């Protein structure tokens, strides 16, 4: 794992040298549509080390959610998946359905985007949280209930015993999201997959939930695979980030380094589209053009039609995610050194 070399991990985890917790190799997902096949995820490979947090960032339609769902086995029946997914060294697709069911919920759990639809509307919150421990640890009902209450108070809900008896519609959005986190933690998973869990919340709440998630995962050494379109959220929560564009990774590396010094023009444009919090006041720039046509993706670098510094060869060079030092990788021809950022940044503005 050259790209992880020299990086100090969080205290309490012994991930160095060990097998990665989650290893994905050459994963592709093809979705057939009436107009043709869409390669939603196009040959991505990555590792999530035990206790670390990896963010996947990309715009709508970049394939990040499909990628997450393909790891969970939640894709629609017509989707075709190729590649390998290893969880703790075991290939998931090679497991018998029964074993795979046991790995779900125990080793892997998930937090969905919309706290409204992720809880069963007609069952009490406590019972829903207790169900995982009930099934996986064969606890008695009362013990499982007690565990649910304990989890609820751990995610910062006051009167946990009372809240456990409520139905989801009697909870506020923030409480529902906390309940979902409690549910995800209920069986002590090794990794939690998050599909934009804070998108449905307002910004203050978002910050609180992110902090909670970060604290709980650090305390318990739980790894995170966090999908979001929001670089700010990922930079706060994650150790690594993989930037995704049109089904491919265009840049990977430590979050702090990627943000301070992007090595792909798409990452740069993405960062430039956020208003700076400190420093001189500069107007944010939108990324020009339209998201790529996923049915007929652009040739060469898929970002070249929208890239302010695109070269003629960008339209032809094959995709190549190459090492650019410091454990970082980039698919940009300028990735080896600092990017030739346009002086007059009008190139990316409309």
């Amino acid at each position, binding site marked *: 794992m050259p790209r992880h070399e020299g990086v100090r991990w969080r205290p309490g985890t012994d991930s160095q040298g060990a097998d990665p917790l989650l290893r994905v190799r050459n994963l592709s997902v093809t979705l057939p549509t009436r107009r043709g096949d869409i390669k939603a995820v196009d040959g991505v490979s990555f590792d999530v080390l035990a206790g670390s947090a990896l963010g996947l960032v990309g715009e709508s339609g970049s394939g990040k959610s499909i990628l997450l769902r393909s790891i*969970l086995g*939640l894709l629609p*029946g017509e989707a075709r998946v190729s590649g390998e997914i290893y969880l703790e060294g075991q290939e998931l697709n090679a497991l018998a359905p029964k074993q795979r*069911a*046991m*790995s*779900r*919920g*125990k080793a*892997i*759990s*998930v937090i*969905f*985007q*919309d706290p409204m*639809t*992720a*809880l*069963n*509307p*007609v*069952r009490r919150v406590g019972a*829903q949280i207790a*169900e*995982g421990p009930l*099934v*996986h640890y064969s606890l008695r009902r009362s013990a499982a209930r007690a565990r649910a209450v304990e989890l609820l108070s751990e995610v910062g809900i006051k009167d946990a015993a009372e809240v456990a008896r409520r139905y989801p519609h009697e909870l506020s959005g923030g409480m529902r999201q906390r309940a979902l986190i409690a*549910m995800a933690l209920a*069986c002590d998973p090794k990794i939690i997959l998050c599909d934009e869990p804070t998108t449905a919340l307002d910004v203050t709440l978002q910050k609180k939930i992110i902090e909670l998630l970060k604290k709980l995962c650090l305390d318990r050494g739980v790894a995170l695979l966090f999908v979001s379109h929001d670089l700010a959220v990922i930079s706060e929560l994650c150790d690594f980030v993989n930037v995704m564009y049109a089904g491919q990774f265009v840049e990977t590396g430590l979050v702090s380094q990627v943000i301070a010094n992007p090595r792909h023009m798409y990452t740069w444009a993405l960062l430039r589209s956020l208003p700076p919090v400190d420093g001189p006041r500069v107007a944010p720039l939108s990324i020009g053009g339209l998201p790529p046509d996923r049915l007929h993706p652009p040739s060469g670098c898929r970002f070249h039609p929208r890239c302010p510094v695109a070269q003629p060869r960008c339209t032809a060079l094959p995709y190549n995610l190459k090492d650019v030092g410091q454990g970082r990788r980039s698919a940009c021809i300028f990735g080896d050194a600092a990017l030739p950022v346009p002086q007059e940044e009008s190139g990316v503005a409309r």
Partner: protein
Amino acid sequence: MTSVTDGELQPQPLAAGDGGIDAAPDGAIRRRRSAKLIVGLGILCVYVIMAVLAPVVAPYNPLAQQIPDALAHPSLHHLLGTDQLGRDVLSRIIYGARVDLVAATAASVGACMVGTLIGLLTGYAGGWLDVALTRVMDMVQTIPSFTLLLVLLLVLGPGARSLVIALIVTHWVVYARLIRGSVLTLRSQDFISAAWLAGLRVPRILLRHLLPNVGRQAVTYLASDIILAVTAIASLGYLGIGIQPPTAEWGSMINDGQDFLSSNWWLSVAPGVVVVLLGLGLALVSDSFNERKDRL
């Protein structure tokens, strides 16, 4: 009646503000709804009491024949007269509740359970199981249900038990379709995915996660389905292929009285009214269930 008209003509004094204007019709609607429910439940109570306490309430044995007294007109001895074999009509109607009400309830509840289970299974499992069972549902629904009932009764033979089985066979399809449709939309929701991802087994997902979401629909339909079952049982009795004489059953009583319509019309009309009133009571109750559901 008069009190209702009075209420409409002289609206109660309204509190100042918009809330008062809105509150009055709302209150009226709610009162009408609960009146529906109370009247319906009252009617049903009478029938249930008739069925449960038949030996206490009925003045005579429903099967006792007193040929000399045959075709007596209503009197203090026989409130609804006697039939052609001298049996007390009122007692036969009261005992009939035991047969008709119990058979209708058993058939509807049975169809509801069978249909709900099959609907849950096909909706959630999908694949060949769904295709196969949906085709079976199509087949059952293509055949006119009454024809299917007749054929099943011919095969199974007459009697209460075969009547209930035949009704279940013809009625489960509606429940199954209803539940299957709801499950199809629920299946793709995150909380069902989450239950599956938590490693729960299929029976648990079906019964603990999906059933509470769809059970209400099945029960609401059940309330109106019982009416169909009651009329089906009475119709089959009328045709002489349902529950067999000498058991007191409303449909066959209507048929028996038919020959004496000109002289003793009440022989047919009384059990007919009893069937209609039961239908009305059930309809009122199921109606107010439906309205209540809308409000939630």
